[in-house]
């Protein structure tokens, strides 16, 4: 029997430990990606590599980090002072720019716990700057790092570091970020040992387990709110970046008392392009949805996943196999997984489910040689959209939804560091779906190039709009427009072009769907008057 007081106290201890690692990583890192946009996560794990706590940074890292840690444990013997680095999507990673570091925490001569962090690097090599290319296989996407020891007994393995840095476009920035990641783990390790000394190893282990059980109970509460039965939904991704065939995504959720089975059978086979999710990403998206339905302060740990069974056919778009290209998996496929899960649940618990949000992260990568300073630059950002209306009120304009929550780069920071000029950054009026409650509006961001550069855009919802619910209209699809001397051209959801100095890339992101018939309210008012 657990002590309800200690449970609460350990909840605080573990989450502040992860939070503290996050602060260290964010502050010490180099790329705007990590510092300004906060595209990283930190977490702590028990002896088996099951998660105990995560600092609430990015949902897409939630369900997938444990796979990285387990893979590190399986593939590398970790001595005291070792740090394992990896980014291989088929060994628990997400996509190559996300680099994970795992460190053991030694207590009583053995690795008792683990701390890990993951950060999105602005470039990891491959066919296009920023490493989010329209690729055909994993080899085009950059350096693939299997679980390897970057630090052995406290000593950085320079050879390995050199290999990595030799294959990326911005090695100095990368080294700075990797150093920051190491520092964050070192801090986590130190704090963990302090906690073990203060409370005793056994008590710490006991309450790690208790907290996982606790999170499981919280998730069960959420599932019990959903009536037993089967709920299905399907939706489409625009294309895989190479062809223009829609990609079918479908789910059948079966609720049975305290358990839920989430079955993706029937979803499209893995694609030839980069729109593929690995299983950990699918798991993250499922986790995200149920975490949203759980009581607000549910800790993020392995217990949350226990009542959920995910069925994702091997070789499908939600469980792709080596050597699939996966660049767009965690940024785009994950968003659509959330959309279909929420769509299915709207049939069961309509009062708790909003209409579809913009459903894309609008990834923009611009890279090349800055002709003025003669240095290579890589710039990556995601642009927010509108959130779906809820059954109670309008959606939010210009906000990141669901699987991401990364900040924008301030215009004054961006122009200082890159040969780019922002001409417009505004809410895209009228893009939210009408309804009794209107969907949130997307954003328009116009970026002018001050030098020739390679531009890659991976976006979605340019063809299939974010759905509305109960008569609410869908949000407006997004638009990608390139304005050059020859005039304006509208490009597809995904493109890679060599753009010229002076060209303007105008990204207009989708709005969210509406909820309820647009004129219901008026009708109701009329009835009241009548």
């Amino acid at each position, binding site marked *: 029997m*657990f002590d*309800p*007081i200690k*449970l*609460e*106290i350990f909840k*605080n201890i573990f989450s*502040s430990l992860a939070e*503290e690692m996050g*602060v*260290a990583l*964010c*502050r*010490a*890192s*180099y790329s*705007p990606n990590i510092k300004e946009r906060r595209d990283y996560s930190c977490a702590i794990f028990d002896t088996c590599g099951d998660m105990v706590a995560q600092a*609430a940074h990015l949902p897409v890292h939630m369900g997938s980090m444990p796979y990285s840690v387990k893979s590190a444990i399986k593939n590398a013997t970790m001595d005291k002072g070792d740090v394992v680095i990896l980014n291989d999507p088929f060994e628990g990673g997400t996509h190559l720019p996300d680099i994970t570091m795992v460190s053991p925490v030694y207590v009583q001569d053995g690795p008792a716990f683990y701390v890990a962090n993951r950060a999105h690097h602005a470039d990891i090599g491959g066919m296009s700057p920023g490493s989010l290319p329209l690729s055909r296989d994993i080899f085009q996407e950059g350096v693939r790092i299997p679980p390897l020891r970057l630090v052995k007994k406290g000593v950085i393995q320079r050879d390995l570091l050199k290999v990595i840095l030799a294959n990326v476009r911005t090695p*100095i920035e990368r080294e*700075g970020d990797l*150093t920051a990641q190491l*520092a964050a783990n070192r801090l986590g390790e130190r*704090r963990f040992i302090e906690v073990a000394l203060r409370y005793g190893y056994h008590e710490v282990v006991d309450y790690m387990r208790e907290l996982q059980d*606790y*999170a499981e*109970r*919280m998730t069960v*509460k959420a599932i019990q709110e959903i009536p037993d039965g089967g709920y299905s939904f399907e939706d489409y991704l625009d294309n895989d970046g190479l062809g223009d065939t829609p990609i079918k995504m479908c789910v059948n959720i079966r609720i049975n008392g305290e358990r839920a089975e989430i079955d993706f059978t029937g979803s499209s086979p893995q694609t030839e392009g980069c729109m593929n999710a690995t299983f950990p990403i699918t798991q993250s998206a499922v986790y*995200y949805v149920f*975490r949203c*339905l759980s*009581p*607000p*302060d*549910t800790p993020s740990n392995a217990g949350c996943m226990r009542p959920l069974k995910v069925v994702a056919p091997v070789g499908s778009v939600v469980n792709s196999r080596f050597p699939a290209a996966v660049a767009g998996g965690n940024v785009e496929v994950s968003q659509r997984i959330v959309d279909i899960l*929420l769509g299915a649940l709207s049939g069961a618990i309509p009062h*708790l489910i*909003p209409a579809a949000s913009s459903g894309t992260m609008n990834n923009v990568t611009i890279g090349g040689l800055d002709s003025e300073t003669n240095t290579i630059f890589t710039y990556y950002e995601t*642009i927010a959209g509108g959130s779906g209306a*809820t059954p*109670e009120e309008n959606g*939010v304009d*210009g906000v990141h*939804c669901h699987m991401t*929550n*990364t*900040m*924008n780069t*301030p*215009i*004054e*920071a961006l*122009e*200082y560091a890159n040969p780019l000029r922002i001409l*417009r*950054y*505004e*809410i895209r009026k009228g893009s939210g779906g009408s309804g009794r409650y209107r969907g949130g509006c997307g*954003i328009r961001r*116009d970026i002018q190039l001050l030098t020739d550069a390679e531009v890659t855009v991976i976006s979605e919802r340019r063809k299939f709009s974010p759905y509305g619910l109960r008569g609410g209209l869908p949000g407006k699809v997004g638009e990608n427009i390139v304005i050059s001397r020859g005039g304006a051209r509208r490009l597809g959801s995904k493109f890679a072009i060599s753009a010229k100095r002076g060209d303007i890339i105008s990204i207009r992101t989708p709005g969210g769907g509406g909820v309820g018939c647009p004129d219901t309210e008026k009708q109701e008012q009329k009835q009241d008057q009548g």
Partner: protein
Amino acid sequence: MLRVGIDTGGTFTDFIFYQDGEIHIMKIPSTPKNPAEAVLSGLNQWKGSPDGRQVIHGSTIATNTLLERKGAKTALITTMGFEDVLEIGRQTRSQLYNLFVRKTRPLVPGKLRFGVEERTLHTGETLKKLDVASVQDMVRKLKEEDVESIAICLLFSYANPHNELALLQGLKEMEIPVSVSHRILPEYREYERCSTTVVNAYVYPIVERYISYLETRITDGRLSIMQSNGGYISAKRAKEEPIRTVLSGPAAGVVGAFEIAKASGYSNIITLDMGGTSTDVSLCNAGLGITTESEISGVPVKVPMINIHTVGAGGGSIAHIDEGGSLRVGPQSAGADPGPVCYCRADNLTVTDANLYLGRLVPGYFLGGDRALCLDNAKKAFKKLASSLCISTQKTADGIIDVANATMEGAIRVVSMEKGYDPREFTLVSFGGAGGLHACALARGLSIPRVLIPKNPGLLSAYGMLLADVVKDYSQSVLIRIDELKTEEIDALFKPLIERGMDEMSREKISVGSLLLEKCVDMRYVGQSYEILVPFNEAYVARFNELHETVYGYSDEKRPYEIVNLRVRMVGGVSKPSLKKGRSKGESPASALVGQERVVYRGESIPFDLYLRERLCPGNRLEGPAILVEYSSTLFLPPDFTCDVDLYGNLILSPY
């Protein structure tokens, strides 16, 4: 000469009068509808001579205007195409796992945000000059809308204010207050600069009205207003930059704690201000801890403020069991009304009830016995909660305190360990009503070697106002690589800031002789985007590396450096109450001993000596277990602590 510190609180307005070396305290009920009434009525109650009085006031007007969203009808003018920056913010949501999450509504709605055609670049070059004719058109629209206040924030105005100044000129005929971003916060990052400027404009007319009202009624002296940076400024200046007065009360508390602790010989302190609904902590490392990254009520406010971290654990925090069976305390609070169960009006158990149940609060002495506490009610409620937790009532009460302590301990970790400071090198200074009941446990948990409890711990904010200096902060984003400039050249860049400061200080009637000038830079390695604040002198580069090592665990002297912002802090020393040093006359503390109370400690009921704090004298030493009571606060001294009364009347608690 009379000096008065006045702190407006939610329940009481506190006064400290200082005249001829003597200090007098007073508390009167606040008048929330017009806080000025309590201020004036308190001042009128002073029986001594009001000659040449100087009043330093910590006003809550700016904060409350912002919290309650009751500011002026404000318009915002931005570079065309960027009117929505204020609303988009950093494009993030405040809660990750909430499908119904909202965004903070911008203080200026879309239809009052206007764009002008103009553009400056990061180099300061003007790409497009402001079209003055277009301003005329806008003036008409602004008049039609009846706006009461205007904020201007153009892109890159920190690098070249030319277009902002031209716009300001064009708006002159409006005759309403205009807040301009390059004046309020000449620093890069457009959203934060814009937000800060908008807050200033939003609270401007309300603060102006309030201060002017006081000014017309405090005619025979000088009125100054406390700022959130720990210093005060003249009323006139506060009206122009009201943003600097937000959260000034808590800031004054930290100033008071720091000055008192410093006089007693401790200048590295962590303050703990535990109130009814929340607890504020702040770290002072030989000086006040300043931050430029504050957020108030969901809105970034980036002017320098004393770095105060707040958590939702206070005396009134409510205990409950959550869905997963964990015992939670707060952040919901019972406040003063209905208050804890022992106030007999509510049935939600609070931290205060737990302290009462365990015998740590003594009913006869709580607020001087003015407030009746019903232990029976609390007992019943504990029985109920304990049975649903399947533990004893005593353990339940202990648990509530432990959980609240864990939250406060977390807050102390945030301001210390997360910033690279070791709490073992600090003194915990506890004030506010409830802090004394928890301070020893917190010190024990974090291995803090000492706790200091000042005299009149309930009036420390008002006291801090009398101990504060005139302080002005200036900043300017420069974004320069230091390998391109010599130290002298960088030093020369401070000149405009210093000139502006000297000018304003002379208007505050501060003589050059009593001026203290601090030059600092916000620095980073080239490519980073967070900065570290470093004093600017010959050794500033080395100091930066040292701080980077402390805060982030590494440094690299070979990397190129960048200075992001220049900062100048001007401190005008003023005459303050000198803290009176008593003498130890070798009296025994026995005269302060008024009885014994049975208190539950570590699961056992043991007798604690009960002392009246006011009867203790400098030099007295007590050993735990003891309870020390005074009007507004109670101190719980566990068996493994000693308590010394120092020569200033502070209590110094040390663990064995």
